[in-house]
């Protein structure tokens, strides 16, 4: 007798991608995922589920969550730049993949550093790839892209690090049964 094994994505991978993808959609739809900034534009944390998925379940799940985020931002877009699937969807797939790699690389330095570096690298991937494709496909002049990248990308990195650390450190405690409510 030969054992029959599940091929491709695991059940865990499918479900985790689904629920975290749902959070990404929800953060966008409810406007809860937009944090107002002094510059007048909003920093977004919609890509954080992709980073968290990448850290928890690896690059494939991270990539899938990014893809859901991308499809949603494509469907919701009201500017031509994000109505281009190459700008809206493709860069988002890489958020979770790169975050998972960064986590694997930085994990030896400690859980805290692993998560923080994955969040930094994942967010930077999103900002840089989206703006770079925007320039390549002639939606933005290069100078504007650099300015937006600096004024927008750095706060987004800070915000993503705060949220990923809070969620993941708490989730690890829930899983090991150490979680207690603090009031």
């Amino acid at each position: 007798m030969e054992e029959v094994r599940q091929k491709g994505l695991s059940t865990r991978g499918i479900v985790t991608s689904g629920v975290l993808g749902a959070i990404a959609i929800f953060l966008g739809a409810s406007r809860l995922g937009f944090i107002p900034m002094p510059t007048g534009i909003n920093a977004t944390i919609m890509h954080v589920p992709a980073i968290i998925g990448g850290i928890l379940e690896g690059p494939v799940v991270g990539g899938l969550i990014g893809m859901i985020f991308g499809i949603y931002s494509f469907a919701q877009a009201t500017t031509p730049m994000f109505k281009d699937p190459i700008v809206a969807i493709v860069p988002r797939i890489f958020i979770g993949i790169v975050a998972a790699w960064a986590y694997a690389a930085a994990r030896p330095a400690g859980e805290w550093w692993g998560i923080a570096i994955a969040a930094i690298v994942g967010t930077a991937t999103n900002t840089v790839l989206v703006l770079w494709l925007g320039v390549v496909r002639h939606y933005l002049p290069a100078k504007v892209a650099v300015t937006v990248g600096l004024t927008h990308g750095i706060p987004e990195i800070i915000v993503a690090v705060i949220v990923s650390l809070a969620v993941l450190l708490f989730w690890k405690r829930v899983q090991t049964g150490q979680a207690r409510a603090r009031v």
Partner: protein
Amino acid sequence: MSEFELLRNITIGQYLPTGSYLHRLVCLLGACAAIVRLGRIPLSYALRGLIPAIPFLVILAVLQLLLFGRNFDPASPVIFQWGWVVVTAAVGRVVLISAARFVELLIVTSVFTLSTRITELTHGIESLLGLFRRLRVPAHELALVVAIAVRFVPTIALQAERLLKAQASRGGGLGHTRWNFVATTRRLLPVLVPLFIFALKRGEELIVAMEARAYMGGEGRTAYRIFQATPADWVAPLAALAFLIAMLRAPFPF
């Protein structure tokens, strides 16, 4: 109380069951049919999705109209001149075309989601990706991921509402201070952290439930409902193709 109603004003992703021809098409073909006609969705409802895009459209059109001037296709005749503002026929054409293209894209995507059930969408994704099965694309799994994501959005929205109310009843609010985004983020954490934990816990329960029912992925899996394309379903993509060819052939009115 409106601050707690998180799913208001979102036309995308909602389904309007009006039972038109468009609704009855299997999704994959519905995507093409959406380009041809508006189903029986009330026009005002579909157009509401356009409202957020209007300021952008107007600014884009005005800038294009004012700033292109003669540099863009100098050969075309001038139709309007006032001081340094020069509008040529070619510029007028570009403005109209880019605005029309954009409006069309927005309407087509919202008509598609308004007239296609989630289950139909997943069937559509699965059968479209099935074409790539030879390349080992996990069609069934990808369709399931999308289905779970879309299915969980309302559940998560309800939970978020509950969390926001719980925070409000303790006197905690989400006050937005534009000048200190770190403080704003930290104020979001009492809602965000339980929300993620809730979703991940629900995920764990779903994994256990699926594995208890011996879920083994897509291979060899049969479906409860089987969709078969009828001749009526093929009318839509053919009409869309004919429309596309006609549009490519038709000259611009001026």
